[in-house]
């Protein structure tokens, strides 16, 4: 089978390099970074850290070069989904496109451009070290499921089986919304609190007032999930308390805080903004997620401009 990774950042690279280990899978990588693409074509894609993997593949910045693919795996940041799939949709005329991105709404965006979409949520993480070289920080599971009836479960199982054989444990399920919403609720309830206060995850959880705020955000997210008939695969609260342990992620600085400090756009529209949007569609009030969304939008706006003189 032929698989194209759309957006070969840290997470995309984990899928690309691992899938490239299989004799029966031909991997293509589409990415906007010319340096990254050239390094991959010259030397392969090198993972280090949680696993040492060298993957050989064809990488390109030009979507027109992509051949017809059986599967796509979209791994861009959520705000780049639209542009990425608009450019590459032609390569999936007969194929299936999976998202392993953060947040809500990516499936809907993909479905506006391609026929058959696979919903997905992935927990492994890493970071780009240099063009063609990626640090694999954390191993973890991936869950895939059909977005709608146009995608049969057997096709999802084919992709999940390939990922698992390649070294990325992946399960195919009929309804993948449970893990997706668990991760979204976890991220939406913790990440912006770190960004707005500057506190690490562990220190947020130590303050009773902030921990209570986190729980109120979780409760709103759960209500929106429940209104759609989604059963979470586990309680986000358990994940939050687990992550607060010193040996897990006590000192973790929220990626959203890092985004703000680096003056990058955050994924707030797809996290809290997504919960608010789905809440409106299903008649569930989400005032706190809406408040957090607005505050982080303000934070993005101030980070994007030079400081004003004190008046």
């Amino acid at each position: 089978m032929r698989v194209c990774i759309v957006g070969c950042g840290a997470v995309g690279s984990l899928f690309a390099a691992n899938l490239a280990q299989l004799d029966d899978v031909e991997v293509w990588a589409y990415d906007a970074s010319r340096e990254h693409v050239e390094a991959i074509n010259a030397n392969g894609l090198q993972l280090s850290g949680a696993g040492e993997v060298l993957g050989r593949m064809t990488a390109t910045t030009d979507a027109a070069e992509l051949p017809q693919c059986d599967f796509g795996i979209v791994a861009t940041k959520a705000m780049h989904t639209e542009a990425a799939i608009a450019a590459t949709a032609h390569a999936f005329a007969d194929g299936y496109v999976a998202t392993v991105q953060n947040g809500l709404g990516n499936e809907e965006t993909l479905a506006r451009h391609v026929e058959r979409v696979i919903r997905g949520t992935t927990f492994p993480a890493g970071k780009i070290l240099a063009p063609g070289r990626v640090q694999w920080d954390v191993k973890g599971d991936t869950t895939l499921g059909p977005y709608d009836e146009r995608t049969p479960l057997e096709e999802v199982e084919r992709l999940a089986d390939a990922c698992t054989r390649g070294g990325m444990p992946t399960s195919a399920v009929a309804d993948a919304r449970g893990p997706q919403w668990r991760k979204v609720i976890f991220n939406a309830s913790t990440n912006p609190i770190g960004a707005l206060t500057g506190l690490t995850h562990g220190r947020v959880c130590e303050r009773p007032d902030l921990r209570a705020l986190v729980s109120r955000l979780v409760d709103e997210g759960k209500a929106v999930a429940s209104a759609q008939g989604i059963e979470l695969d586990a309680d986000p609260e358990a994940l939050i308390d687990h992550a607060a342990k010193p040996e897990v992620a006590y000192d973790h600085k929220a990626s959203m805080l890092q985004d703000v400090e680096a003056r990058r756009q955050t994924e707030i529209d797809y996290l809290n903004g997504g919960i608010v949007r789905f809440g409106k569609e299903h008649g569930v009030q989400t005032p706190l997620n809406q408040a957090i969304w607005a505050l982080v939008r303000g934070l993005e706006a101030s980070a994007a401009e030079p400081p004003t003189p004190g008046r």
Partner: protein
Amino acid sequence: MNVCVAGAGTIGSLLAAHLGRVTDVSVLVRREEHARALNREGLRVSGRADFTARVTAATDPADLPEPDLVVVACKGSDLDAVAAGIEGEFRSATVMTIQNGLGAEDVVAARGPWPLLSSVTFMSGTRHSDTHVEYILDAATWIGPYRATTAADARTVADLLVGSGLKAEPYDDLRPAQWSKLIFNATVNGVAALTGLPHDHRFAEEPLGPLVHALMDEGKAAAAAAGVQLAEDPWEMNVFATQRGFRHSPSMLEDVRAQRPTEVELINGSLVRSARANGAPVPLQETVYALVRGREESYS
């Protein structure tokens, strides 16, 4: 009338300098060098006015003439320390608070039996040095009786301020004005501190405007639950202030930028505690309160 201004930040400096033109003014400050500079150079005002006033300054109240009126003009976060510094002093004086938020009067009341006036001020400026303050927004100071004082006492002080070139109005009951400003400050200062944005048109537009509006609605409900009828609508104050044409950085934003303690307890904390005591739900105000306190926690 002999007036002592305790604390010479922006508001204290504006008060001391203006009053110094019409009456005897002493200034109680924390740093010796600040007192020496004031005694040597006087206090200069630029901006809306342009003059230099003579003042007598010291770090020890015992070194100052006995005042008839003490204006405690420090920031809320320094209030108890400043009040403790005059404990047992100035026995014949009336003391007036001017801090943001609620509860400043009670902090001072716990330090001595002085008759108390409360006030809120809308004027603002920028302190350029120990002896130079720029007067930017020439808005009013509202004054009302608090403990063992009358509306006539409030009027006397308001008249003194007006005579010195400032704007002031006396009130029989200051709470309607105090709560209007409390709701305004809890919302605008909190949102500014958390987002890093100065108070400008964005506070009245998408995406922040609806949040600002909802926070103020909660504040209005808390005021109603406390039995207070507001003097002004905080949302209208917000819209008006954002149309003034300059981008004011609220003190809470300045404080978090400089990693200083903020006035979150007197402002947001007072609002939330009053709402809780009166059974008014304020989940958004609680959110802002918790986030600003978390931000302060992140300094260390």
